[in-house]
């Protein structure tokens, strides 16, 4: 009697995007043939032919014409089978505009971004700054420093069980500097660029951040912990020497600008800047003046600029809180020693 409409839907059982056309087709009581794509295997010929540009599901094929993008498909279904079933889109243009706005928001903005950190950790501060620079919304989970590690942490970082961990759409990214680079590349259409644009400058930024993380801060940590006066003195000399080298690097990289990154904070600023709070706290607690204006005037100025930057100042913990915390850490270390 009537024409037989040929309606095919290519999907993947688990995909929320593929669920959308299924619901729409059901609402309109449209019969269709469903083809399940192999999630981990190779894409079917039909998929490659009907969506050569993106090679993704869902794809609706109506009388041999492919329709792509789940929300487009739902609108198409609503318009094509408009004589049956309820209307899917609202009837008033303003309400439609609103519906489209919020569905675009759902698809583009509600990326699931979680950050596991510890308030005090300079390493955890780094991704916080980066996410803020890119205006990315995220859920923050504070790990219990002295307690047991959360299940989420153990699951996402089974090798090192350390923070920070960034979980983006269920994929964990580890190591603070890796996370910052990942954030820079993933949210590349918004906000300033974090890494420098020229490959040579990038290599320089990575070199100096490796220096900070692999040489400089470990030396400071070791000097802070050691009981031997000799080792402490030697260690602190190394830390001061490192700061002199960083001062030189700053002068040559910043070229008169307030930050390593130029006029705005960049990768190197985030890397070294995440330790400024600790340096200032140690000065208050121990009288240890590492940020000495007479020795490293440019870095001292930079440190203050960094802390007063709009993005940074809402992210780094207050110096007094850090002082209190460092004191507590020390007390715990002492009592641990006296117990043995």
């Amino acid at each position, binding site marked *: 009697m009537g024409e037989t409409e040929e309606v095919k839907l290519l999907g993947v059982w688990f995909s929320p995007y593929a669920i959308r056309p299924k619901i729409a087709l059901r609402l309109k009581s449209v019969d269709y043939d469903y083809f399940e794509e192999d999630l981990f295997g190779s894409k079917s010929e039909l998929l490659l032919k009907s969506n050569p540009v993106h090679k993704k599901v869902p794809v609706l094929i109506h009388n041999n*014409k492919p329709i792509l993008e789940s929300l*487009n498909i739902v609108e198409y279904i609503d*318009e094509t089978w408009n004589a049956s079933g309820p209307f899917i889109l609202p009837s008033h243009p*303003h309400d439609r505009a609103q519906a489209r706005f919020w569905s675009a928001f759902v698809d583009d903005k509600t990326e699931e971004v979680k950050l596991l950190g510890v308030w005090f950790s300079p390493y955890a501060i780094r991704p916080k700054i980066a996410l803020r620079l890119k205006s990315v919304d995220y859920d923050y989970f504070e790990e219990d420093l002295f307690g047991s590690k959360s299940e989420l942490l153990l699951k996402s970082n089974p090798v090192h069980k350390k923070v920070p961990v960034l979980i983006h759409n269920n994929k964990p990214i580890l190591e603070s500097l890796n996370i910052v680079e990942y954030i820079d590349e993933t949210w590349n259409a918004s906000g300033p*660029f974090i890494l420098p644009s020229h*490959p040579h400058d990038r290599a320089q930024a990575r070199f100096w951040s490796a220096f900070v993380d692999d040489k400089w801060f470990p030396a400071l940590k070791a000097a802070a912990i050691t009981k031997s006066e000799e080792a402490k003195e030697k260690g602190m000399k190394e830390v001061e020497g490192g700061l002199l080298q960083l001062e030189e690097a700053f002068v040559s990289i910043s070229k008169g*600008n307030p930050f390593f990154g130029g006029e705005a904070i960049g990768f190197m600023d985030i890397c070294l800047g995440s330790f400024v709070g600790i340096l200032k706290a140690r000065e208050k607690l121990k009288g240890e003046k590492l940020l000495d204006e007479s020795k490293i005037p440019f870095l001292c100025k930079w440190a203050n600029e960094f802390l007063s930057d709009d993005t940074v100042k809402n992210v780094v913990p207050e110096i007094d809180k850090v002082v209190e915390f460092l004191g507590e850490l020390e007390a715990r270390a002492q009592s641990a020693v006296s117990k043995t």
Partner: protein
Amino acid sequence: MAEEVILLNFWPSMFGMRTMIALKEKKVKYEHREEDLINNKSALLLEMNPIYKKIPVLIHNGKPVCESVIQVQYIDEIWSDKNPLLPKDPYQRAQALFWADFIDKKLYVCGRKTWATKGEELEEAKKEFIDILKTLQSELGDKPYFGGNSFGFLDIVLIGFYSWFPAYQKFGNFSIEPESSILMDWGKRCMERESVATSLPDPERIGGFILQLKKLYGIE
């Protein structure tokens, strides 16, 4: 009944150009308000687009509509009596929306890289950019406009980028000409329309704007 139509815009935005062109095609009277995005977003912008705080924002009788593609669809639906912008056929409409999404996700990001990156990343971006133009060109085919014989939705979505092409080439130090001559002809054809010619800025000004952006972001 008095319709109040306000457009919050920023002159270099290829997205704002879309809404402007759509309003002009429909001969809608509107008030244009220029936002100073670099220094100071207006209270009205922050109130009308609290989610993204971005332009363009179309305010129709006090109610905001955000996101340029959504605005063009809205304009087409409200002022539906003249000059239809989107195709009538649902399939062609779905196609048009697909390509609009492609342009937003691919062309915009890649274009940005031509002035904001250097070295290997820039070289890759330049190759990708030309590939994207070739893809769009094959979608155009031998039609005068993307929609067919009349200027429509997809032409409106893409044409704003035409004012940025010279700057992309200048800063990226490359030419798109030989591979994209058909697309360039399409661009010139669109520029003959008053709605387009009065909405696109002089490409030289775009160059100056990019220099400002580079300074702001600390890019050399």
